[in-house]
C-alpha cells in the first residue's frame, strides 16, 4: 500500500483535536479540521463565477456547483451532501450540479480519517456539519455582497432558491449577480446554522440527484471512459497467491489480429489490444509459466487452524473492568468460538482503471473511494511528484470497501507505464476475485458467566489482522486495531466484569475493508453467543437481551420496536420452503447507529436455508434523507443474507477456489425475503447507515437457523450438511 506522502505520522496527530469517539467510529478518532475557505480546487469548473469556498462555486450564469468530498457508490451521499449544503445555501436540489472533488487532502480530507476517503459509514457523521457550514458561509457572503450593493442591512435580506430579496424595497437579484463581489470578501467565522425547525430539505425524502442519468444509461462509470486512441488491456495474476512470472512466450498473442502488445511485469501479464474482447482472447492464448513461491502450500484448513492457534496465544487488552477471569474460576462459564471466512467484494463493476502516462504527467480515470491514495500510488510507480498525477474520479459501480485501496490503480499504472497512449485496464470477473484484497478471516472466542439470568462476567477475544496498521497507521495505537474490535469493546449490554482482548494475526492473504467492517465479526459473535446463553439458560432471546439492556433505554426501544413489528413470540406461519422454521433476533450498536433485526427462516431437510421475512428497526439519530436510510437497510440486509448463507473465499494449494458468480453466489430476486424497515424518530447525533443492515441481519439469520434446527453453526457461511435432517 503506497502511503499518502503527506499522511501524518502518529506523533503529529496529538497536535490536532483528537477525541475518542464514544460511538465506535471507525478508527475511533475524530480529528477536527478547519473549514477550507480558499478558492475551490475542484476540476471541471468551467463557468465564469466565483468559488466562495472549497465546496460552493456560484457561477455568474447557470447552476450552482457543489463539490462532493465523499464519493457516490450507491449509498446516496451525493444527494445527502448536496442536501446539507443546499439547505443552508437556500438553493433547490434542481438548481445544483454535483462535482467530484479532486485528489486534494488539504481541502477534501476526511474529518475523521484525515486522508481523503469515503467509507466506514462515516460520511453523514463527518461531513454534515462542515458542509452545512460551507453552505451557510457562502450564503452569508452573498447576502453581505447584496447588502453592500443596495446599502441596506444584511439582516433585512431574505434568500430563497438562489435569489436574494429586500422585502422593504422589493428589489431582488440572483446569487450569480453578486458572486464576484462576494468572493472578494473575507469569509465570516461562525456563521449560525439553521435550527432543525427551519429545515426545508434535511429530513425530507428528497429525490436522488444521481439517478436520472443512471436509468437511461448515461452515467459514465470508470469502466465507461473513452479517450481518443485508447487501447484496452486484459490482465492476469498468478493463480497461486503472490506467484511471479517465470516465463511467457508472447508470440501466440501477438499473432492475433488486433493485439498490440504484451506487457510482462514481475507478477502480472497483460495483453493490450484494440478492444477488450481481443485483449482477453490474447491473454488466453498465452502459455504462462508461473513461479508459485511460498504460498504454494497455503490451504484453507491450515488457515483456520493457524488462526485458532493464534487465538489462544498472546494478545493485548482492549478493555478490562473488574475481574472476569476470577469470576470464571468461581463458576462454570459458557464458552464458544465463532469463525468468519475471507470474503470478496464482487462489486458488479469489476476493478478497472484507465491511465495515460505522457510528457512527464499521468492522468487516471477511475472510480475510487481514495483519490489521494490513488494519486500517491501512481506517483510512486512513476517517480513523479503527486501533483503531476491527475485523478479524474467517477461514480462507482459498487464500492463495499473494494475501492478503498490503491492497489488496482497501481497495477494499471505499472502496465500503462509501458504503453504509448491511454490504456483502459479491465479486470475480468475471475481476476477481480483472484486479485481482491479480502475481508479478513476473523476468529472470536467468547466466555461468559451467567448468574440468575444476568451475565456477571464476559470475556471476548478477537483474533484477526490489522487493516488500520497499514491503511491508517496513526489509528493503530497500543497494538489495538480499533476497527477489528469495534462492536466488541463497547457492546450495548451490561455484561458484568469485562475483559476484551485483541490478537493481531496475519496469514499472508491480502485483506482490506469490506461492507460492515469490524462489527461484521464482533457483532455476529456477540449476538450468536447471547443466543447460546439464552439456549443454555432456557431464556427467551429477546427477554435476555431486554434484561441486559436495562441501563440502555435507547437500545431497548429499538429492540422492542423490532420484536413488536415482527410479532416476536407468536407462532410462525407455515413455509413452502421447509418444515423446520425459526425466528432469530440481533441488535447492533456501531457506526453511531442502533439497529435491531428479527429474521424468519425455513430450513429444508437437506439443510438449505430460506430467509422468508426480515424486520429491522433503526435509531440512526437525526436523518438527512429517510428514504436513503430505508434503501441502505434494505440493500444491507440483502448483502448480509448472501454473506451468511453463501459467501466464502477459500484457498487450496495457494489458489483462490472461487472464480465467478457460479461459485461465489450473490442473492437473487427469487431468494428474497420480505423486508420491513421501521425508522424510529430520533434527535440524537446522526449515525451511519451504509454498513449496519449488513451487520445486523447476519446474526439474526444465524440465530433463526439455531432456533429452527437446535444447532448453532459457528463457522460461516452456514453449512447445509451440518443442519441436514440426517445429522
Amino acid at each position, binding site marked *: 500500500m503506497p502511503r499518502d506522502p503527506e499522511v501524518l505520522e502518529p506523533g503529529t496527530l496529538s497536535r490536532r483535536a483528537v477525541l475518542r469517539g464514544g460511538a465506535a467510529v471507525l478508527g475511533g478518532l475524530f480529528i477536527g479540521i478547519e473549514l477550507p475557505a480558499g478558492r475551490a480546487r475542484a476540476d471541471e469548473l468551467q463557468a465564469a463565477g466565483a468559488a466562495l469556498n472549497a465546496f460552493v462555486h456560484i457561477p455568474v450564469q447557470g447552476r450552482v456547483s457543489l463539490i462532493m468530498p465523499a464519493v457516490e*457508490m*450507491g*449509498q*446516496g451521499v451525493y444527494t445527502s451532501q448536496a442536501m446539507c449544503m443546499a439547505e443552508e445555501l437556500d438553493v433547490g436540489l434542481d438548481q445544483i450540479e454535483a462535482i467530484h472533488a479532486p485528489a486534494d487532502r488539504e481541502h477534501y480530507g476526511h474529518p475523521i480519517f484525515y486522508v481523503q476517503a469515503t467509507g466506514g459509514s462515516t460520511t453523514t457523521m463527518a461531513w454534515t456539519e462542515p458542509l452545512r457550514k460551507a453552505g451557510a458561509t457562502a450564503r452569508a457572503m452573498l447576502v453581505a455582497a447584496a447588502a453592500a450593493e443596495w446599502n441596506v442591512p444584511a439582516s433585512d435580506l431574505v434568500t430563497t432558491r438562489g435569489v436574494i430579496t429586500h422585502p422593504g424595497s422589493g428589489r431582488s437579484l440572483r446569487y450569480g449577480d453578486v458572486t464576484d463581489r462576494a468572493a472578494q470578501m473575507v469569509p465570516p467565522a461562525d456563521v449560525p446554522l439553521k435550527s432543525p425547525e427551519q429545515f426545508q430539505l434535511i429530513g425530507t425524502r428528497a*429525490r*436522488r440527484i*444521481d*439517478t436520472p442519468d*443512471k*436509468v*437511461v*444509461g*448515461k452515467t*459514465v*462509470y470508470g*469502466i*465507461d471512459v*473513452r479517450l481518443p486512441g485508447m487501447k*484496452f488491456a486484459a490482465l492476469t495474476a498468478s493463480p497461486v497467491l503472490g506467484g511471479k512470472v517465470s516465463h511467457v512466450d508472447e508470440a501466440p498473442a501477438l499473432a492475433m*489480429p*488486433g493485439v498490440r502488445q504484451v506487457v510482462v511485469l514481475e507478477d502480472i501479464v497483460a495483453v493490450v489490444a*484494440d*478492444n*477488450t*474482447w*481481443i485483449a*482477453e482472447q490474447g491473454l488466453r492464448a498465452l502459455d504462462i509459466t508461473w513461479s508459485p513461491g511460498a504460498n504454494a502450500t497455503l490451504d484453507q484448513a491450515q488457515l483456520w487452524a493457524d488462526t485458532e492457534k493464534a487465538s489462544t496465544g498472546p494478545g493485548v487488552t482492549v478493555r478490562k473492568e473488574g475481574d472476569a477471569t476470577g469470576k470464571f474460576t468461581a463458576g462454570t462459564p459458557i464458552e464458544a468460538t465463532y469463525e468468519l471466512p475471507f470474503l470478496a467484494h*464482487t*462489486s*458488479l*463493476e*469489476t476493478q478497472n482503471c484507465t491511465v495515460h502516462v505522457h510528457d512527464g504527467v499521468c492522468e487516471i480515470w477511475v472510480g475510487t473511494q481514495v483519490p489521494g491514495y490513488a494519486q500517491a500510488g501512481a506517483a510512486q510507480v512513476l517517480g513523479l511528484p503527486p501533483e503531476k498525477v491527475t485523478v479524474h474520479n467517477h*461514480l*462507482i*459501480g*459498487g*464500492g*463495499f470497501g473494494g475501492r478503498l485501496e490503491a492497489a488496482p490503480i497501481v497495477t494499471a499504472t505499472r502496465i500503462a507505464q509501458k504503453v504509448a497512449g491511454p490504456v483502459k485496464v*479491465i479486470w*475480468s*470477473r475471475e481476476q477481480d476475485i483472484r486479485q481482491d484484497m479480502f475481508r479478513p478471516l476473523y476468529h472470536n472466542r467468547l466466555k461468559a458467566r451467567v448468574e440468575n439470568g444476568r451475565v456477571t462476567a464476559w470475556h471476548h477475544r478477537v483474533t484477526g489482522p490489522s487493516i488500520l496498521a497499514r491503511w491508517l497507521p496513526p489509528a493503530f495505537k497500543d497494538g489495538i486495531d480499533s476497527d477489528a474490535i469495534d462492536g466488541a469493546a463497547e457492546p450495548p449490554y451490561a455484561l458484568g466484569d469485562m475483559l476484551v482482548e485483541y490478537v493481531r494475526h496475519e496469514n499472508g492473504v491480502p485483506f482490506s475493508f469490506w461492507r460492515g467492517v469490524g462489527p461484521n465479526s464482533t457483532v455476529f459473535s456477540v449476538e450468536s453467543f447471547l443466543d447460546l446463553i439464552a439456549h443454555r439458560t432456557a431464556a427467551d432471546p429477546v427477554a435476555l437481551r431486554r434484561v441486559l439492556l436495562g441501563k440502555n433505554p435507547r437500545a431497548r426501544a429499538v429492540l422492542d420496536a423490532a420484536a413488536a413489528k415482527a410479532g416476536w413470540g407468536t407462532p410462525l406461519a407455515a413455509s413452502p420452503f421447509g418444515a423446520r422454521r425459526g425466528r432469530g433476533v440481533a441488535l447492533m450498536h456501531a457506526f453511531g447507529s442502533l439497529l435491531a433485526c428479527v429474521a424468519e427462516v425455513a430450513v429444508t431437510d437437506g439443510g438449505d436455508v430460506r430467509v422468508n421475512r426480515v424486520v429491522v428497526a433503526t435509531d440512526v439519530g437525526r436523518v438527512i434523507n429517510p*428514504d436513503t436510510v430505508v*434503501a441502505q437497510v*434494505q*440493500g*444491507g*440486509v*440483502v*448483502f448480509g443474507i448472501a454473506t451468511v448463507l453463501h459467501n466464502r473465499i477459500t484457498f487450496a494449494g495457494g489458489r483462490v477456489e472461487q472464480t*465467478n*458468480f*457460479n461459485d461465489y453466489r*450473490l*442473492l*437473487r*430476486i*427469487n431468494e*428474497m425475503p*420480505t*423486508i420491513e424497515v421501521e425508522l424510529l424518530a430520533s434527535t440524537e447525533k446522526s449515525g451511519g447507515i451504509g454498513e449496519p443492515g449488513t451487520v445486523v441481519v447476519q446474526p439474526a439469520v444465524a440465530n433463526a437457523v439455531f432456533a429452527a434446527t437446535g444447532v448453532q453453526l459457528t463457522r460461516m457461511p452456514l453449512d447445509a450438511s451440518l443442519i441436514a435432517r440426517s445429522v
Partner: protein
Amino acid sequence: MSAISVNGRTYEINAAPDTPLLWVLRDELGLTGTKFGCGVAQCGVCTVHVDGIAVRSCQIPVGTVGQRVITTIEGIGETSAGARIQKAWLDLEVVQCGYCQPGQIMSAAALLTANPDPDDGAIDAAMSGNLCRCGTYVRIRQGIKHAARS
C-alpha cells in the same frame, strides 16, 4: 465490415464475427450504457433486447445478429414498457450504485411487454438472472408492479 441495427440506427462495424455483441456496443460503438459484469451470463448486467427478447450480450457473437433489431438501455425509453419502467425506477428510487440497472431495466421492460400484469412468480422468473450487489430487489419488484399499473 458488416452492419448491425441498434436503437433504430445502422452501424458499420469492424469487429470480428465472433466478438460478443457486448464489446462491439461498448468498445466500438461507444454505447457504454450496457455493462460488463461476469462474461459468463451469470449476472445480467449486459442485458439487451434482440427483436424484443432480453438476451445476455456477452454471449451473442455479433456475427449471428444479422438483420435483427437490437435495443439497448440508451434506446429502451422509446418503447412504452421501457419508458414506464424508467419512470417507475425514478418514482420509487430503485437505484443505488446503478451499475446493474441498465440490465435490470432491459429485463423488466421485456417482461412487461410480454406480460402486462406480472405476479411475483413471473417477476422471479424474468428477473432472477439479473444480480444486484447493492440489493435493490425489494424496489425492483415494486417498480415492475408500479410500472404495470401506470
